[in-house]
């Protein structure tokens, strides 16, 4: 007898595509937050599938800290051109120039937190009523309680204690003027699911996810890429290592891992035996126990 079962990846994909179509139906002006990282690439890939043969009916929005890895930006521009999407770039540099935010100083200076202001400004400027993101519940503990459809008030704030219950596959995107939603289609995916899906669907990703030789230095146990955006201390010696990145964020707060995984298959094997979470390489989460929750409440991704 023929079996009518979906595999776990097919079911996760069906769920995410359903959510993307709900967004297109329930909101007037949605946007897809696209960082060039693997999670947002997977979401964008499914958006293509969801609306085929039409193009993705909303723009991609990149909040650019100006401190990105070159490879990420090149990939982004190439990707957007290939799928014929409309790209909007919100620039943190511009927010700094306009005096809306002040750049951090010192060795650990990062523009990561500044992104929130630029993000909210971009949402306001283009009157987006929904921003789709690639966040996953398994990534970080403040994200574990996040809804698929997450309400934001007129200041872009998240109220984690007062979230709407979400039942079955019914999503309540009702809101007042000036409010918006963040929607996370891959909430139920793990890092492993994402890599398996990338392999299955043969999705292109930025080269820095794969093992490569790189000039790096060690800071507080984290392997950081040398870069003109980071001030190195005198005792932080530059060396060459075979590394890859498990997440791609701002170059100032994203660490690399030593790895020989130069193919997606090898990455999957590596993830299968990994003993630390992927955000273990993110110094932005290490600022305090509730670093992510605090940033999210203010309107962070």
């Amino acid at each position, binding site marked *: 007898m023929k*079996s*009518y*079962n*979906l*595999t*776990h990846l097919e*079911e*996760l*994909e*069906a*769920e995410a*595509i*359903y959510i993307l*179509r709900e967004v297109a*139906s329930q909101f007037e002006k949605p946007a897809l937050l696209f960082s060039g990282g693997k999670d947002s690439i997977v979401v964008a890939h499914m958006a*293509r*599938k*969801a*609306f*085929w*043969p*039409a*193009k993705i009916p909303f723009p991609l929005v990149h909040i650019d800290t100006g401190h990105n890895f070159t490879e990420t930006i090149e990939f982004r521009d190439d990707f957007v051109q290939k799928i014929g999407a409309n790209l909007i770039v919100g620039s943190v540099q511009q927010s700094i120039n306009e005096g809306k935010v002040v750049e951090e100083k010192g060795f650990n200076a990062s523009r990561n937190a500044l992104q929130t202001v630029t993000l909210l400004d971009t949402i306001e400027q283009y009157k987006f009523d929904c921003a789709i993101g690639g966040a996953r*519940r398994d990534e*970080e*503990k*403040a*994200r*574990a*309680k996040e809804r698929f459809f997450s309400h934001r008030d007129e200041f872009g704030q998240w109220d984690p204690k007062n*979230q*709407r*219950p*979400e*039942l*079955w*596959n*019914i*999503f*309540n995107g*009702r809101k007042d003027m000036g409010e918006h939603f963040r929607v996370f289609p891959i*909430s*139920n995916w*793990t890092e*492993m699911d994402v890599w*398996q899906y990338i*392999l*299955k669907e043969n999705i292109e990703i930025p080269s820095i996810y794969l093992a490569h030789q790189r000039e790096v230095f060690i800071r507080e146990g984290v392997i950081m890429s040398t870069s003109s955006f980071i001030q190195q201390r005198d005792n932080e010696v530059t060396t060459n290592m075979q590394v890859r990145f498990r997440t791609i964020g701002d170059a100032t707060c994203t660490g690399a891992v030593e790895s020989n995984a130069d*193919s997606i*298959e*090898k990455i*999957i*094997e590596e993830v299968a035996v990994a*003993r*630390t*979470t992927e955000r*273990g390489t993110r110094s932005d989460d290490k600022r305090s126990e*509730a670093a*992510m*929750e605090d940033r999210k409440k203010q309107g962070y991704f």
Partner: protein
Amino acid sequence: MENSTTKNETSSYLDMELLRFSTAGSVDDGKSTLIGRLLYDSKSIFADQYEAIEETSRRKGDENVNLALLTDGLRAEREQGITIDVAYRYFATPKRKFIIADTPGHIQYTRNMVTGASTSNLSIILVDARQGVVEQTCRHTFISSLLGIPHVVFCINKMDLVDYSEDVFEKIKKDLEAFSSKLEVRDIHFVPISALKGDNVVNKSENMSWYQGSTLMYLLENIHIGSDYNHVDCRFPVQYVVRPQLDEFHDFRGYSGRIAGGIFKKGDEVVVLPSGFSSKIKSIHIYNNEIEEAFSPMSVTMTLEDDIDISRGDMIVRENNQPNASQDLDLMVCWLNDKPMINGGKYALKHTTNDARCIIKEVKYKVNINTLHRIEDDKVINTNDIARITIRTTRPLLFDKYSRNRITGSLILINEATNETVGAAMIV
């Protein structure tokens, strides 16, 4: 050559299934220990996560590592030492990926369990072997049944504390069978375990040779979930209409959505509701891939032979198997909001891909979820109450009974002033 070996090692994931299950219980019935064991043994807790919660537990003076800290990520939860919300946890074995909806035992108990149960294939109900069936056990079982969870696994826990006694297990099993017979649960299992010692969780117990059944992990990995979705009654709620403004697809008019029931095949005669027009399925697509048939819960795009006016909220079905269409509905509602339900009040509602409004016409009774008794003299519906009500909607809904189809049989009520989701309802 090298490529093909790598392929074999990594391709087993292409056969994995997804099982969603919910757990419910209070702090001391061993739920955290059980989940902890499942996560440890499947290597789903990472070293940095474990070190972080170990450190926090030590600082707070807890004797054991408190696993709730893994997902109780909100500051308020940590400060008060309570779980506010449903916590979703993930783990996988080579056979299946699991999503656990872990619901807290005390605060907002009903609301959280109903939420977690709404998407579950399976419910794990923990029973303390020393105490047997208590109020909480009945409550868990009732909600699992109400939410139509297809499989219920009773784990009789702490068997190590009753000398692994077969008599104790059999007595509890009998009590549970008696209670469950009053409810609609399709598939029930009983497993004697010790979450702490590991008996019958992942590995078969050496202390209970009298038990011939499966371990919990074996059940989780092997229980047949293929029939959990309705593959009989064809229901395709239209979610989105695709009309590409492209030369290549000039005449393409696709109806996208997630199949809520049944199996649709290319060439099938179908009827579009509510208009009643008939047509034939011309093609079914997932992306640029044309497929021969599609079944629940796939997300697909269909095209029809005839040019019919179809929009979001319509439903594509088979002519000889149609859903109910009515403005008057009987519901079991679980109230989710701090403001009581207003009898005679108006609410917005969402059902499949449809939006409508409704008026609460009558509260028939409330259910005492511990005893299953009907309460007919108190009709104030507060948060966490479960009640039988009737509503009238602004226009006919296309629905099935919840017991027949969890997608076309469920709806939510929304407060029109605050936009909050205030009620979860199952159509009776």
